[in-house]
């Protein structure tokens, strides 16, 4: 059990709260920096995807996990980011400019989607964003001259193998470090936002819109901001995604992709940035496990839709048995280990909300 003796207000603001933090995140950092040395090509590819999905996860977590606005259309922002990046790269624009544009343009689209969201709540917002997803998918499929329509378009590769001081640096490793750096930057930006007034305003909107507005939070402004930030992060993820898969077409950004993204957030643990990363790891590893399982299953017993079935099942099981997701589970395990042997079963049981009525809404 760790007791932190606080003597300074800055202690609550600091990124690194105690030695354990520094040690474990340091270890993770070293392992990730050294990944090109220890990881096979296959593992490297998985890591690329984990980083990309983590960035998107951060975006969706800010919106759904912290501001409490559901979105079933995030694949559309992913598409906007991916196509912006692809078009600008193919036109020969430098990467720094193109990824910034991907983020900004995606963010701008986020604002447009956020505007109707000011009047919609819960299931209605889910349906509106779902419709948005379908619209964007259709636009991409029909705008043949720009996007290549359903035939898709290929994306110029970003990096080549280069010689640095006599060593050959693989294109794969370069792209890996790019993804790693962007993931860390996006993560830090989210953490910074969450420990400052804007992040608190988001949480306030999530927990009680009425009292947020009575505390001076401009609901319209902060909801739009949340949509914009979320969409921008997803746009960055989309840009990296375009480079990673090298070929993009509308069918990669369907409703199913959106549901996959929301699955990241729910499985990982809604309301925790850690959850976005854990959820991405899960969602990347699960299909691999399924394909391994398929080899073991007797012929004819492995249905073609096995992946969708398992995804749906896992999502349902998590919502019923572990609503706080993987990160919530980890918090419980950690509490168990820290308090051993004094852990009680009911410790994390959710308290009943007192007298929370809809009277004022």
């Amino acid at each position, binding site marked *: 059990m760790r007791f932190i003796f606080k003597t300074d207000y800055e202690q609550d603001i600091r990124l690194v709260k105690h030695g354990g933090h520094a040690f474990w995140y340091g270890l993770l950092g070293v392992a990730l920096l050294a990944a090109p040395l220890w990881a096979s090509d296959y593992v490297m590819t998985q890591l690329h995807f984990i980083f990309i999905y983590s960035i998107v996860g951060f975006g969706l977590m800010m919106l759904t996990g912290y501001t409490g606005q559901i979105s079933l259309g995030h694949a559309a922002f992913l598409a906007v980011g991916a196509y912006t990046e692809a078009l600008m790269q193919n036109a020969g624009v430098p990467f720094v400019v193109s990824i910034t544009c991907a983020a900004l343009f995606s963010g701008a689209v986020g604002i447009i989607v956020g505007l109707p969201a000011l009047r919609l709540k819960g299931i209605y917002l889910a349906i509106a964003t779902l419709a948005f997803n379908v619209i964007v998918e259709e636009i991409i499929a029909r705008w043949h001259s720009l996007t290549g329509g359903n035939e898709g378009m290929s994306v110029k590769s970003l990096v080549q193998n280069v010689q640095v001081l006599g060593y050959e640096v693989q294109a794969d490793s370069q792209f890996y470090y790019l993804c790693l750096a962007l993931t860390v930057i996006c993560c830090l930006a989210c953490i910074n936002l969450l420990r*400052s007034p804007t992040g608190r305003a988001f949480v*306030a909107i999530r927990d009680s819109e009425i009292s947020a507005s009575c505390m*001076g939070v401009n609901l319209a402004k902060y909801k739009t901001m949340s949509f914009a930030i979320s969409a921008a992060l997803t746009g960055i993820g989309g840009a990296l995604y375009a480079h990673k898969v090298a070929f993009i077409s509308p069918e990669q950004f369907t409703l199913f992709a959106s549901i996959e993204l929301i699955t990241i957030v729910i499985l990982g643990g809604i309301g925790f940035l850690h959850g976005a990363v854990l959820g991405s790891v899960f969602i990347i590893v699960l299909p691999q496990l399924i394909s391994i399982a398929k080899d073991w299953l007797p012929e004819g017993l492995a249905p073609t839709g096995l992946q969708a079935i398992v995804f749906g099942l896992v999502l349902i099981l998590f919502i019923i048995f572990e609503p706080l997701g993987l990160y919530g589970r980890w918090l419980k395990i950690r509490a168990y280990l820290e308090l051993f042997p004094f852990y009680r079963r009911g410790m994390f049981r959710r308290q009943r909300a007192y007298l929370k009525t809809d009277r004022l809404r």
Partner: protein
Amino acid sequence: MSFFRVEGAGISFGGVVAVDSVTFEMKRGEVFTIIGPNGAGKTTIFNLIGLIYPASKGRIVFEDRDLTGMSPHQVAELGIARTFQNIELFEHATVLQNLLIGRHRHRRTALWQELLFTPAVRRAEVVQREAVEKVIDFLELAKYRDNLVAGLPYGVRKVVELGRALASEPRLLLLDEPSSGLNPEETDDMAFWIEDIKRHLGVTVLMVEHDMNLVARVSDRVLALNLGASIAEGSPAEVQAHPAVVEAYLGGPA
């Protein structure tokens, strides 16, 4: 110039007249209480002042500024803070975070600064924290500072909500039934705090309350409402003895 006044404010929902042209005026630094039987329109008046509902008639004027047409967050920006009858805290945040959200109207940093967490943001955060710690000291919330609101007992939540309103350093504080659901000792504490808020913090308090002991103890003036209209105004003792008030609560001679 008056500090705060409500001029003939009223609202009706469809055919139901919830509040029908209520008029009253408050002086700076007093505790003004609205009493009345259930359904008299007390909370509705609060919602009119907070612009949760736009008044369908009349005006509400705070320090010579007409609140008509403003949105709730603009009212909060002016320095009007409120608590809710049924507690509307941010459940999945700690007590400290709840109080920090109360500081929202004092935020001065821009989004880009916060994304980078520049030294200016860091300094501002410490300043906000110091202000919040004063409220924590005042309301003796220190031992709950890092607890999630979702796990706190009802009485403490009530105090946290008061703390959140105080953290915004309001000039006018609206308390919607501060003692509802509290036991006698907690109600006693609440009375002390309301007196201290008035005397030491110099905040003007507008309160809706049912507990007549508490009302008599802390209020300077009382307004009695029934069926959306005011029926008596004056000192607590005067209003309690007023025939129309007795009739509203107990029923008149048949």
